[in-house]
């Protein structure tokens, strides 16, 4: 009973592992994004958290990958708390703060990499990618449980929807928001560490390549729900996998005058699909009511 021959089996296996690998950083960062946004803090800074995590992972992980991972998580959390401090205490607009942090992170990591890493870059042993993939598989369930089944999650959502009412019910919004955005930074840092420690074993300045923004797109695509965002991350991961497999196979799909297997077109696919999904299936996504508002 062999429905598929060996070649097809191998292709499916390769596609599914590549899908998981591509989805992992997106899912990790997206879970952070959900926590932050459900607590009411817009998080464009995910991109900056990821670049930082990727850099710190290699910087601190030259002797041991695990140390690098821990440092990436810690520095990511610090950046998250900085975003929280700026938006909550200093009343900086959430998008402005996020963009500033992204600029700072991009500039600082490139600057420091040029200073502390040799021109050929530094290679590290890193951390087995399965660690990150396992975490990315388990985490959506944890976040779902935390959001919908714990007191912390209920309060976090209350703060994101209506901080005034939450305050009247005796919840202090600020510590919750700090906790959420700190966790978000930590997960963003871990997601970035996956790119450097888990995947490429080195740091390059363009490493995150907008994956933080895509993770945010996954959050919105998934309507700010862990399951939805995880599925969106998987979908994006599948697009990446399809693209690399098509490029490896060297097959050409030419139809109605368009070269469908062109890498440029395949690169475009996840973004175009998200747009189409937003326009058609997803419909009006309702963000948390107090998202980006002051408390």
């Amino acid at each position, binding site marked *: 009973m062999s429905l598929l021959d060996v070649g097809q089996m191998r292709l499916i296996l390769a596609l599914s592992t590549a899908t998981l690998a591509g989805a992992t950083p997106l899912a990790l960062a997206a879970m952070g994004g959900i926590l932050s946004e459900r607590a009411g803090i817009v998080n*464009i800074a995910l991109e900056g958290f990821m670049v930082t995590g990727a850099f710190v992972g290699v910087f601190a992980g030259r002797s041991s990958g695990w140390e690098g991972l821990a440092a990436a998580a810690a520095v990511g959390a610090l950046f998250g708390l900085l975003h929280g401090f*700026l938006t909550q205490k*200093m*009343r*900086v*607009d959430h*998008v*402005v*703060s996020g*963009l*500033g*942090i*992204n*600029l*700072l*992170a*991009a*500039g*600082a990591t*490139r*600057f*420091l990499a*040029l*200073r*502390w890493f040799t021109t050929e870059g530094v290679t590290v042993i890193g951390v087995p990618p399965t660690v990150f993939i396992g975490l990315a598989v388990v985490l959506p369930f944890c976040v779902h449980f935390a959001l919908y089944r714990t007191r912390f999650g209920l309060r976090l959502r209350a703060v994101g929807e209506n901080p005034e009412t939450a305050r009247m019910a005796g919840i202090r919004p600020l510590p919750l928001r700090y906790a959420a955005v700190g966790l978000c930074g930590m997960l963003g840092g871990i997601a970035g560490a996956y790119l450097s420690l888990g995947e490429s074993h080195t740091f390059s300045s363009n490493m995150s390549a*907008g994956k933080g*923004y895509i993770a*945010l*797109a996954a959050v*919105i695509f998934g309507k700010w729900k862990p399951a939805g965002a995880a599925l969106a991350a998987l979908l994006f991961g599948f697009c990446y996998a399809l693209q690399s497999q098509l490029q490896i196979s060297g097959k050409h799909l030419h139809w109605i005058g368009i*070269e469908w297997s*062109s890498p*440029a*077109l395949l*690169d*475009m696919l996840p*973004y*175009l699909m*998200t*747009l189409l999904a*937003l*326009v058609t299936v997803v*419909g*009006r*996504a309702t*963000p948390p009511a107090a998202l980006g508002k002051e408390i």
Partner: protein
Amino acid sequence: MKRPSLSGILHSRALFLFGCVLGGLGIAGVIMAACGYPVGAAYGALWTGATGIQTGPADGLSQIGFVIAGRQVHIHLFLFAQSLARATPLILTGLAVAVGLRAGLFNIGAQGQMVLGALGAAVAGQAHGLSPAIHVPLVLLTGAAVGACWGAIPALLKSRRGVHEVLSTILLNYVAVNLAAYLILHGLKDPERMAAETREIAASAWLGTAPFALQSNLTGGFLIAVVAAVGFAALLPWTAWGYRLRAVGLGPEAAEAAGIKVDRTRIFAMALSGALAGAAGAIEVMSVHHRYVEGVAATYGFDGIAVALLGGLSGIGVLVSALFFGALESGAAFMESQTNVPADLAVIVEGIVILFAGIRLVRRSRAREHIEEGRQATDVSA
């Protein structure tokens, strides 16, 4: 209650922003020192690269000498021109972001609009046998038109399907870059070149280089950008469309109630925004590269957000902050060539300046809080 005078507000705001810049340079200096770089020499080179001002007597035609307080100083015109050249696309993308934000829309898509505007301009530049008087405006307008079409999409998606423009513009950036790459690979590529570039545009579509710094990238494009900024500053407060745009940005519900067509105004604002970003792309093609090259838009579209925010969304503010960013980036490039301190220092400074400039320490007045509470109450009942 005593109303603060306008000049007082401007004065304190300008001082505050100046403080932000100093803060950014200060923190970046600490990072630099921690890395063991010579801070003094680096900032000296940054200053020279940014302004062109150097000590010592002038030698040659490209330098103008002065004597200040008994010391001989000269301005290196090439370096000065490069700063202005660097500011040119930043003025336009800064205005693009400012137009959107004035209408209440956060256009993060200036990058993609600029890329496609540049590609459109490069294609229109291929036409031969036109006089420069026709060809230059044609190429510029083509770039602007392509940018406008691309910019209008997020506004359409917002009004028709409620898609948030921050998300759609981010996504459209990636679509635009890859669309350009696809079109280059399949049809528009210069067959004689290895890199993914279009053919060179006809000489009739080139913008002439500034006569005082012929080796620089400074062209008439800078004047176009300045005119756009001044036009923005002059037209927005005094025209009907400027009024509608601002009304929609301040409060779409109120604007709607006052009979302003909100959706149409938003689409207009985003098209204008895209047109400005597209024009930035066209000018880069006509002044610097003379063809579409990968990375023609660098990060100008994203930097435009920083420029617009630092410039307080006003035409003149955008002009000033773009000149600052242009000088900073151009100066940093010179700094790297002189002292080996990476030019990415400029990005660090930009990031910190943006974070500082966004800080709003002034407590809202009690009256203002009442108004906002009232607004929230009506929101709930609606």
